């Protein structure tokens, strides 16, 4: 399955358009990472636990979007966009959306 964030797949013309597909996950982190984050909030620096958490969530959200596109019979998703927001203390929602198309 091809994914791009521009309006086409370079070199492959679009045959049919299937509509908007999306995937989302809400993930909460676990206590171990939280303690490190508490320390880092004093010292500053990168929160590796959070970065990994959000990366995994993003992968999962993309997989959900891909399977939705596959069900529609598409073989590519164009114009993919991401959106992240914190929904509760210690939980983040990742939302991915794009247009499912069939290309050559």
């Amino acid at each position, binding site marked *: 399955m*091809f*994914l*791009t*964030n*521009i*309006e086409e*797949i*370079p*070199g492959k013309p679009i045959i049919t358009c299937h509509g908007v597909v999306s995937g989302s996950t809400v993930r909460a982190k676990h206590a171990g990472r939280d303690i490190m*984050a*508490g320390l*880092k*909030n*004093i*010292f*500053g*620096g*990168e*929160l590796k636990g*959070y*970065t990994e958490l*959000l*990366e995994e969530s*993003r992968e999962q959200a993309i997989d959900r979007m891909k399977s939705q596109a596959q069900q529609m019979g598409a073989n590519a998703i164009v114009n*993919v*966009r*991401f*959106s*992240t*927001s*914190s929904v509760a*203390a*210690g939980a*983040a929602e990742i939302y991915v959306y794009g247009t499912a198309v069939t290309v050559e």
Partner: protein
Amino acid sequence: MASSNGVKKMPDLIIFIILLSLGYFFGKWAEKSHYASIIKREKKFLNLPATSFKKPIGEIPPIERSHLARGSVVISVDYFKRILAGLRNFFGGTVQSYETLLDRARREAILRLKESCPQADQIINLRIETSSISKGRKNSIGSVEVLAYGTAIYYESQSPS
């Protein structure tokens, strides 16, 4: 700040000062070493341009393949900066302490994007999303996530290179 309430408030004040200085020194050190690492890695990727155009720039060979690439980072603010920002909320004006934090986070995210596809020839339609993963009490911004994503394109390789 602590009121002149006698001995009971002293431990609070001492803890506050300790946290503040810890935040200041570690924060400054972390920022300096991070910027040094960022500049070193940016030099490495001078050959891989990232633009926010929707089409590739310049005269290029036909494109062989492309894929979605991304890089992200979550950076937290140290205590000292957060106090500074709190003061700013009182007086208004630019919050310089946060500006360097976000600058580092953006550059780091773009570097990670490039590191995820080192063989690519160009990255187009670069988009950057910033969101606050707030963790601090009193509604202060605890940490910020920056996601940079774009389409990495690979030219068709020229005859035997």
